[in-house]
């Protein structure tokens, strides 16, 4: 793996382009070559810097400095002074007052990684997750203490509402609103459920939080319990996450010992208990009602909604179900206030997002960045470019149920609104980045096989639809496709989206739709020409039993 | 239902089944294998437990299916129902859980009851019944504190020499708790056969005319003499359990039997066979040749329920239509026609004085609707019943006092038939025949899900026979081991009266020391073994307890 010593990002939003940023980029390429720095310095672009006066800007790492406005003729000086000699060119820096929040994070340097905005991951990699003292030392349980001693439950909910926090499980529902629904729903008991059944392929942000900072999630659950008048909480951790379970159990135990769980927490009259419930290998249990069914000792078949868990949840009582990442936002919001929180991200999607980066890129793993970052930025800044210099072909966002984002849409900001507008979804924050050696039909086949395997089987469109879609796509990869199949596929996908009981069946259609929307030529090549352009599909019938995943269990 | 009649003035299930399953908060099932004998009601009880969380206490020596749904299973020794019930009442009184207001306003005889109940402290009761004190206390608490509570029983309570006393004691319990005349409560004897209730209502009993009008009362005698135009007998007749043995003494010379099989259904079969054998004349009206038909002189072919129209009255006093679906098979005739024709012929012989002008002297019925009109005219509790109302879809539980009366789903609301409910103190009497050295085990008898009564119909249903094709004798694994059954499944069960050979079903349904047999199969009918000890009042035999010896048959 190539490790670059520095990284240069040239802004390429429409305004910057108009002001000649393309030329700046070209000059950088030239100069880096001539200074023989091309091997050590990565060069890329960045969009939507949100600053008209300073654009075009150039960002250079690891110092995380921002120059602007930059003219093509400045490039030589930046290369020779900054990149060659290592001096920051002070007079070319963007003045502080011209740095809006959208840019500010580019300069921040928290943690060991470049330019992350770490709110949720602040302690990750810094503390020993099995040591409650480490957690307490790093502001742990301060938010809980504040809530219990200085705030009413209503005030807690108000603060969360004001922060604009939206659910990070994928749907983006306003968290404060959900909390107030549950708090006001009639019922004998109320429950907090932390959804840690993180099963979207490629998503492991929750695992990182649970393994690296379990007390943060526990603290958030306790605060949520206080806010909605619950006395019991469940955390549903998927069975495959053994280490997460182990560490969370330890956290529960320590919290009892220290008095953050149990009766009269921190001297208040609030009691709270948390139970850990292990999943047992079913993707669909990530769906909140399936998860509730699973806790109740049933098959994880999603319920029909309405009614929603906010009124009819666990054991039929009002239940708050929040994703791990959503909850992780709660303590910092309470501790620092909603105003502080809204400084991050975009006005419509405040805060940060934890992304998992995977696929054919140089660096894979988890990062936290403000909402609104673009795919291109992720690939080039964090993932350190495509592996082996291959070209970026597409990214799948949000696990199996996410969209396929073609290269042409890589500048779409990743927040709750923009992808929706562009017809793609942010989902769980997984970014599977594929290079041009990836066959989209093969990829979609794998995804459909996954859905067919993970469908609970309750509703017709999902149970049979995923199988029929899989069969059709498989036939295409085996040279047995027909052009007319594509219309049938699209029609079936549309109906699955319309008719399925839960998100699984609805989103199983998304990759098919995206494939036919963005990569139809490639699909048709399989059918018309009988070849797979990437050479991945063998175009002959494959051994059925080897590929089918009948009765598979871990 | 003499027991209930004593307590309340009339004896029948007080509350409809649906009312019990919808409104009871607790239930006591005692002496009823409900899911096998009244399967549809049994499943409704299961659902009441599943869906409404009803607290169910089952008292039964056997671990019958319904115990799976029981909050508490009291496995008392056979024949100890009275001490069990008295013991529960003792605990209830000791805790002050009784319904004082109900007792004061609607009952009499409480002090006498109390005196006897005090004789049954939990420790003593535990000793007699074999139910631990702790379980007795739990049961009493569940039954007393979840109101309304409904009591259900069947033959497990009545087929004892103390059957009537058992019933009266259950009535005591329910009066003590004030669970009568209320929705979801009541005393609810589950009637075994499809139309037992109706047959009783219709006066097919030796002591009453239709509607339980006593045959020895002046008003009733006058009423029926006027209606039928003939002189009525003024004394009680014999019950079936008396009639057949009285053949031997010569008191009974001839029998007219409609659709019954006493050889299979009556106790001590070999004695029954002997009596029938010597009977002068037996007229049997049946649909199949039966064990009894071997002793008949004339056999008239009647029809099945599918071939006739009329009414049945179910266990909850609901009168419902039976409708003819197919013509009578062959030359078979509808039973009501046969009876009428026979009656007309006998009357034609003229030795009995009948005033042909009496309103209901005639036997020339058009159809059963006309018969029902006659019933209505003579039976106060059926006064408002007619086929027309039933065909119009009306749901009628008797008493239906007139043509506009809507029927009476729940009995004893506000007042008992006899005015005040009567507490009757009941003392324990041990069963007639208990195991001894010669016959060391106890035999309990009853039915199984797949068969019915003497088995005349169900043994002729192919599928039922495939599932349950031969008599099985339930025996506890401990006993099976002691007897050296070792996989060899055939056993011989003998009593002082006879013996049968059958396949053993080794199961924990029965406690050690008990075997359970059914009477569905002639080749191994439990009634070859049972004792003809009768309840002194109801004349019901003690089917549920007799002493037997069990041996493995080496083959």
């Amino acid at each position: 793996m190539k490790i670059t010593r520095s990284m240069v990002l040239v802004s390429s939003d429409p305004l910057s382009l108009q002001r000649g940023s393309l030329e700046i980029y070209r000059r950088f390429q030239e100069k880096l070559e001539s200074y023989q720095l091309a091997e050590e310095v990565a060069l890329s672009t960045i969009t939507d810097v949100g600053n008209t006066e300073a654009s075009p800007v150039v960002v250079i790492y690891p110092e995380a400095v921002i120059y602007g406005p930059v003219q093509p003729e400045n490039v030589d000086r930046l290369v020779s002074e900054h990149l060659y000699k290592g001096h920051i060119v002070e007079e070319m820096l963007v003045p502080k007052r011209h740095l809006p929040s959208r840019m500010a994070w580019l300069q921040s340097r928290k943690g060991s990684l470049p330019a992350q905005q770490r709110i949720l991951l602040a302690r990750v990699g810094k503390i020993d997750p099995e040591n409650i003292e480490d957690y307490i030392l790093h502001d742990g349980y301060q938010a809980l203490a504040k809530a219990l001693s200085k705030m009413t439950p209503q005030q807690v909910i108000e603060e969360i509402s004001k922060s604009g926090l939206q659910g990070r499980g994928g749907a983006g529902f306003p968290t404060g609103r959900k909390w107030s629904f549950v708090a006001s729903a009639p019922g004998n008991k109320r429950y907090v459920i932390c959804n840690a059944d993180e099963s979207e392929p490629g998503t492991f942000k929750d695992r990182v939080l649970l393994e690296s900072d379990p007390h943060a999630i526990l603290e958030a659950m306790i605060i949520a319990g206080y806010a909605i008048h619950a006395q019991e909480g469940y955390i549903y951790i998927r069975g495959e996450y053994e280490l997460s379970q182990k560490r969370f159990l330890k956290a529960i135990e320590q919290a009892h010992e220290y008095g953050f769980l149990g009766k009269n927490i921190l001297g208040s009259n609030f009691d709270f208990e948390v139970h850990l419930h292990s999943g047992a290998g079913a993707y669909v249990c990530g769906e909140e009602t399936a998860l509730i069914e699973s806790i109740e000792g049933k098959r994880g078949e999603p319920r029909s909604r309405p009614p929603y868990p906010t009124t009819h949840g666990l054991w039929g009582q009002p239940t708050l179900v929040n994703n791990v990442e959503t909850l992780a936002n709660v303590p910092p919001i309470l501790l620092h206030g909603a105003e502080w929180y809204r400084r991050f991200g975009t006005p419509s999607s405040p805060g940060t997002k934890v992304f998992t980066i995977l696929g054919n890129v140089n660096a894979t793993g988890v990062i936290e960045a403000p909402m609104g970052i673009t795919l291109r930025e992720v690939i080039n800044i964090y993932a350190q470019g495509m592996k082996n210099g291959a070209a970026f072909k597409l990214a799948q966002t949000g696990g199996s149920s996410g969209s396929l984002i073609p290269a042409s849409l890589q500048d779409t900001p990743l927040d709750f609104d923009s992808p929706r507008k562009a017809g793609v979804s942010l989902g769980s924050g997984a970014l599977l980045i594929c290079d041009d050696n990836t066959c989209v039909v093969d990829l979609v086949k794998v995804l459909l096989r996954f859905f067919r395997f993970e469908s609970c089987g309750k509703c017709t469109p999902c149970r049979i639809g995923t199988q029929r879609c899989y069969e059709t796509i498989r036939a295409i990869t085996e040279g047995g496709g027909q052009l007319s199949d594509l219309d049938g596929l699209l029609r079936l996908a549309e109906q699955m989206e319309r008719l399925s009981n839960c998100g699984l069946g609805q989103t199983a259609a998304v990759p098919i739709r995206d494939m036919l929307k963005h990569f139809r030529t490639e699909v048709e090549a399989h059918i018309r020409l009988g070849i797979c352009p990437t050479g991945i599909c063998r175009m002959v019938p494959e051994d059925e039993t080897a590929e089918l995943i009948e009765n598979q269990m871990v | 239902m003499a027991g209930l009649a004593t307590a309340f003035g009339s004896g029948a299930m007080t509350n409809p089944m649906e009312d019990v399953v919808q409104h009871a908060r607790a239930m006591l099932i005692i002496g009823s294998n409900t899911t096998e004998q009244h399967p549809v009601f049994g499943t409704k009880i299961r659902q009441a437990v599943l869906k409404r969380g009803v607290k169910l206490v089952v008292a039964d020596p056997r671990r019958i299916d319904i115990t799976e749904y029981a909050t508490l299973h009291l496995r008392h020794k056979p024949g100890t129902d009275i001490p069990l019930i008295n013991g529960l009442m003792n605990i209830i009184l000791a805790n002050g859980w009784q319904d004082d207001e109900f007792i004061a306003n609607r009952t009499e005889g409480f002090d006498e009851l109390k005196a006897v109940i005090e004789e049954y402290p939990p420790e003593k009761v535990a000793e007699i019944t074999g139910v631990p004190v702790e379980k007795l206390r739990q049961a009493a608490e569940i039954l007393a504190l979840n109101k309304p509570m409904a009591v259900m029983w069947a033959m497990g309570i009545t087929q004892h020499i103390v059957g009537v006393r058992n019933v009266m004691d259950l009535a005591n319990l329910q009066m003590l708790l004030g669970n009568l005349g209320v929705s979801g409560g009541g005393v609810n004897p589950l009637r075994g056969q499809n139309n037992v209730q109706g047959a009783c209502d219709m006066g097919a009993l030796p002591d009453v005319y239709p509607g339980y009008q006593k045959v020895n009362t002046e008003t009733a005698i006058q009423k029926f003499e006027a209606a039928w135009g003939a002189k009525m007998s003024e004394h009680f007749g014999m019950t079936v359990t008396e009639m057949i043995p009285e053949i031997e003494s010569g008191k009974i010379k001839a029998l007219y039997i409609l659709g019954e099989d006493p050889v299979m259904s009556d106790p001590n079969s070999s004695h029954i066979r002997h009596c029938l054998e010597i009977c002068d004349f037996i007229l049997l009206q049946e649909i199949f040749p039966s064990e009894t038909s071997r002793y008949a002189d004339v056999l008239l072919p009647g029809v099945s329920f599918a071939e006739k129209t009329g009414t049945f009255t179910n266990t909850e006093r609901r009168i419902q239509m039976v409708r003819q679906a197919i013509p009578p098979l062959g030359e078979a005739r509808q039973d009501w026609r046969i009876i009428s024709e026979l009656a007309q012929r006998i009357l034609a012989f003229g030795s009995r004085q009948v005033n042909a002008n009496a309103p209901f002297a005639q036997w020339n019925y058009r159809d059963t609707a006309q018969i029902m009109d006659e019933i209505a005219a003579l039976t106060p509790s059926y006064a408002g019943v007619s086929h027309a109302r039933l065909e119009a879809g009306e749901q009628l539980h008797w008493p239906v006092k007139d043509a506009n009366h809507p029927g009476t789903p729940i009995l004893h609301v506000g007042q008992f038939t006899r005015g005040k409910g009567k507490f009757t103190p009941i003392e324990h009497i041990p069963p007639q025949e208990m195991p001894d050295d010669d016959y060391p085990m106890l035999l309990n008898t009853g039915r199984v899900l797949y068969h019915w009564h003497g088995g005349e119909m169900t043994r002729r249903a192919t599928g039922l026979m495939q599932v349950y094709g031969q008599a099985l004798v339930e025996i506890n694994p401990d006993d099976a081991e002691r007897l050296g059954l070792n996989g060899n499944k055939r056993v011989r069960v003998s009593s002082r009266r006879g013996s049968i050979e059958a396949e053993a079903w080794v199961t924990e349904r029965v406690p050690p020391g008990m075997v359970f047999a059914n009477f569905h199969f002639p080749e191994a009918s439990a009634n070859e073994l049972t004792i003809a000890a009768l309840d002194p009042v109801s004349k019901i035999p003690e089917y549920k307890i007799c002493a037997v010896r069990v041996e493995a048959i080496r083959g």
Partner: protein
Amino acid sequence: MKDQSTKDLPIAAIVEAAIEKHGTNYDAFIPILLEVNKAVGYIPLHALKEIRLRVRAPEDGIFVNEGRLYSLSSFYHMLSTKPRGRHVVIFCESAPCHVVGGRQVWQALKENLGLKAGETSEDGKWSLVTTSCLGTCGVGPVVVVDDEIYGNVTPEQVPEILARYE
């Protein structure tokens, strides 16, 4: 194979211990099954009976039968209703591993073990199964053998990994 030895395993004690830990309420069913699966390698039918006998409690409104437990066991893929080999090789076949070389690793596993998906070797040593994502995609392709997880697996490493198990 594991099923042959289940006769010797104290199923009742395993169930008892699991109940001790998780209770007998409805929310304990799946955890109890997980414990049995872990201890036995799969869920034998008589374990279902043991669970039913111990868990069923009409007094608390808890009803369960073998059918429901079997249904759960077959729904959740970490539970197995069939006996498994001494060592279970689990391969993540989700898209993230697939695009970074998972295909080739899968081929190598099948060839080295001589098994197809879902099969158990005749000597009862190996079972080969697939799973959905294990959440360790950052080090994909991922192979799990029993409780050990291996990341960044290449086809060449497969024989070496398998050789560690007896």
